[in-house]
Every structure is written in C-alpha cells, then in structure tokens.
C-alpha cells in the first residue's frame, strides 16, 4: 500500500454491496491512491440500513462515500471528489480536453453501455436479439476510445477504466451465464484485450469480488427473472 498523502485523522468510509460494480469503483479508486478506508456492507436486497437512508435520502442507494462525516452519493461524483482530494496517482488527466473526453466516456458507460448490457442479458426474450445488437454497438463505440492504448487512461488505469470495471470483470462472467456472446476476442479484440490488462492489475485484483460468487448470484437473478416471466 503506497504512502497516504492527505491530512492525518482522515475518516473515510464506503457503504457498498459486495456484488455491485458501482461501490467497487469507489474502492478501486481509493486503493489506487493508497487511501485507507472503512468498508460497510449494505444488505441492499433485504434491508437498507437507517444510516444509508440518512446519508442518501434522495436515491437511497449505494455507494455512499463519507469523508470526515460528509456524505457523497453517485459513483462518478465520488470518483471526481476522490481525485480532487487525494493527489497521488491521478485518475483524471491534466489537460482540460482530455478531462472532457474521460468524463464523456465515463458517462457513456453509465448512460448507454450498462443499461444496454443489462437489457441484453436480462430483458424480455422477444427483444433479446435487438438488445444484443444495441449492446454490441455500445461496446464497439467504447472500444474506439482505447485508440491503441493499454488502458483508457493511457499507461495506467484512469477514471474511464475504473468506470468500465463492470465491462472488465462482470460482463465476461454474466454473458457466459446468460448464453449471450457480446464481448469476445474476435468481435471486440481491443476491448477484450483491455479486460485482460484490467483484471491483471494488482490493485484491480484486490478490489474485485470472487468470480464464483458473482456467477452464483447472477444465475440466481436470471432464474428469478425467468420465473417471473413464466405464464
């Protein structure tokens, strides 16, 4: 763990859910910058804690980030705050244009890629083919942002890599269970290669949930969805 650059007596907490890529993003950013934090697991499928509801009354969701008692919600907002506050290992580039591009792609991942992917693997059967095509288009567009680099952030991971964590890890697991081939070496060679680079970073490895547990959780979720749609 790298030396912490920051004020002594900093109290940092993350409210998350073990399977959620969104809270894992926050943890990854903190680990990348060597910031120690306390992690609090929220039972989001069962009962959300009164503390979570107190800190995020608007959305009632994880992740919630707490710095010396002050709460912040929304993972991309949290990532920007972390970068503003802890200067070691920046996750956003220095140049304003490059920063705008990083923000664009991070938002594209959340606004387009994530919903498209979820629809492709969980959506209604009769819309499956179209959903898979749309998800494929989203990933192809995102792939263009790599532009020959090792990571979206260049030689090291940056905000876009962190935002793309669910593509780096979750997508390959989930698509296999769902029986949908979206991200493959022949369809999206550069993006596929990036997923290998991403998960092989030690700081990323440390911040990922166990693969078998994600598989099991998702299998259960797909079974549940299918049960719900059975006549």
């Amino acid at each position, binding site marked *: 763990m790298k030396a912490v650059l920051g004020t002594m007596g900093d109290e940092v907490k993350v409210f998350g859910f073990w399977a959620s890529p969104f809270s894992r993003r926050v943890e990854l950013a903190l680990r990348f910058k060597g910031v120690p934090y306390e992690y609090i697991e929220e039972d989001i499928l069962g009962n959300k804690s009164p503390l979570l509801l107190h800190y995020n009354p608007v959305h009632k969701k994880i992740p919630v980030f707490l710095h010396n008692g002050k709460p912040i*919600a*929304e993972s*991309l907002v949290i990532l*920007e*705050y972390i970068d*503003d506050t802890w200067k070691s290992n920046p996750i956003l580039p220095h140049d304003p244009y490059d920063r*705008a591009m990083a923000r664009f792609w991070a*938002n*594209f991942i959340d606004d387009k890629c994530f919903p498209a992917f979820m629809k492709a693997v969980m959506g209604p059967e009769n819309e499956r083919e179209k959903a898979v095509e749309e998800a494929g288009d989203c990933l192809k567009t995102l792939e263009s942002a790599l532009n020959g680099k090792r990571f979206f952030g260049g030689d090291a991971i940056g905000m876009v890599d962190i935002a793309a964590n669910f593509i780096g890890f979750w997508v390959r697991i989930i698509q296999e269970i769902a029986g949908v081939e979206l991200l493959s070496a022949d369809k999206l060679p550069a993006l596929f290669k990036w997923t290998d680079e991403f998960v092989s970073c030690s700081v990323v490895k440390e911040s990922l949930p166990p693969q078998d547990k994600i598989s099991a959780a998702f299998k259960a979720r797909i079974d549940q969805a299918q049960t719900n749609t059975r006549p």
Partner: protein
Amino acid sequence: MATSEVKLLGSWPSPYAMRPRIALNIKSVDYEYIDEKLWEGKSQLLFQSNPVYKKIPVLIHGHLKPICESLIIVQYIDEAWSSGPSILPSDPYERAVARFWAAYLDDKWFPAVKSIGVAKGEEEKKAAIAQVEQGLGLMEEAFGQCSKGKAFFGGDEIGYLDIAFGSFLGWLRVTERFNEMKLIDEANTPGLAHWADSFCSHAAVKDVMPDTDKLAEFGKMVIAKIKAAGAAAQRH
C-alpha cells in the same frame, strides 16, 4: 490559452444548449453560435461532430475535436479558460454537492417536468406534478445550504449548479402556464423564487434565455407532435 475559434452548435429552445452559452458568457469568450432547427432535421455538421449521440450542444474549440454533453462542456469551459471567473466551486466537497444536484436534475427532475406535458390522464399528471414539487422542495433546501445567504447556488456569482438548474426555468415557466399553476413561488419556495429572478436577469443569462411566449408556442407544437406520433403508433 490562446483564443482560438470557438463554435457552439445549439438549438434556441434547448435548456442544454443554453448551459455552455452562459458559461462562455461568464468567461467573456467570443464564440460563433450555430442554431440547429432540430425539428426540421439534423445538419451534416451535427452528425459529424457528435456521431455518438447526434445531439446538441456541441462545442468545437479550435483544432480540437468536438466536445459533447452540456455539463461536460461547462466543466471544460471552466478548466480551459481558467483565468476567468470560476464556474465550479473551489472546495472539493462543494464541487461534489453541485455535481450531485446537477445529475439529479438531469436524470430525475427534468424528465418529471417533461412528463407533465405528455401525461395521459389526470392521475398520471398529478403524479408527475407531485414528483416535480418534491424535487423543488429538495432544491429549495439545497439552495439554502449552497448559497449560504447569497444570491446564487454559487454564492455571489452564478456557478455550475445555477447554470444546470437555471437553464430549465424557461420550460418550467411554460409548464406553469400550460397547467395554470405555480411550481416555484414565494409561498412554497421563497429562496428559489428570488434566485430565479436573479438568475434570469443576470448579464450572462438574459440574452440566451428564450422568451417564455416564444417557448410556449414551440412547446405546443412539440406536444402536438408527440401526441400525434403516439396516436399514429397506436393505430398500427
């Protein structure tokens, strides 16, 4: 940074296109404004400069490639013209708060405002109005916290959240007019009521805020089109 050529593609009724214009005005940056009449179709320049979303606003700064998404453009303007007045707050936590509310307005609040116009039946309309009012209650509280007694969310001067929220005032007023109701008013949201007046009369805003009458006429046309498209879809 050298003052290279700055172009902005926008559309006069769009709250999103207004945001970068206000930001450029705050920084006293000269720019060429290109108005897209989106209801007549999209231009080649728009398709070329925003192939991912095909939407306005798009900022084209000199030889750099275009920048899209209104709030990203506003942040870019703030960072590229760093010697001008600041748009984002200087404190990281205040920045996070401003970003949080701007995202809330775009993702949750304004879609609720739009849904009032196309609601099917009284129940749906009432639910949409309730959601909008609840959001305004949150924003009134946020205003109290962010402004700390000053005129704007940004303090003495307009900032990121003022721009993000204020750009919706035109359509909010049109919604009030169409539904014969007040959403921001002295009684329920006194802070926001004063803020709205201050915002709209600000030098950086007043020339780019569309006239409510003109916007209302445009609104009627849009609603009619949406309803016609909905009816046509049902006939098939």
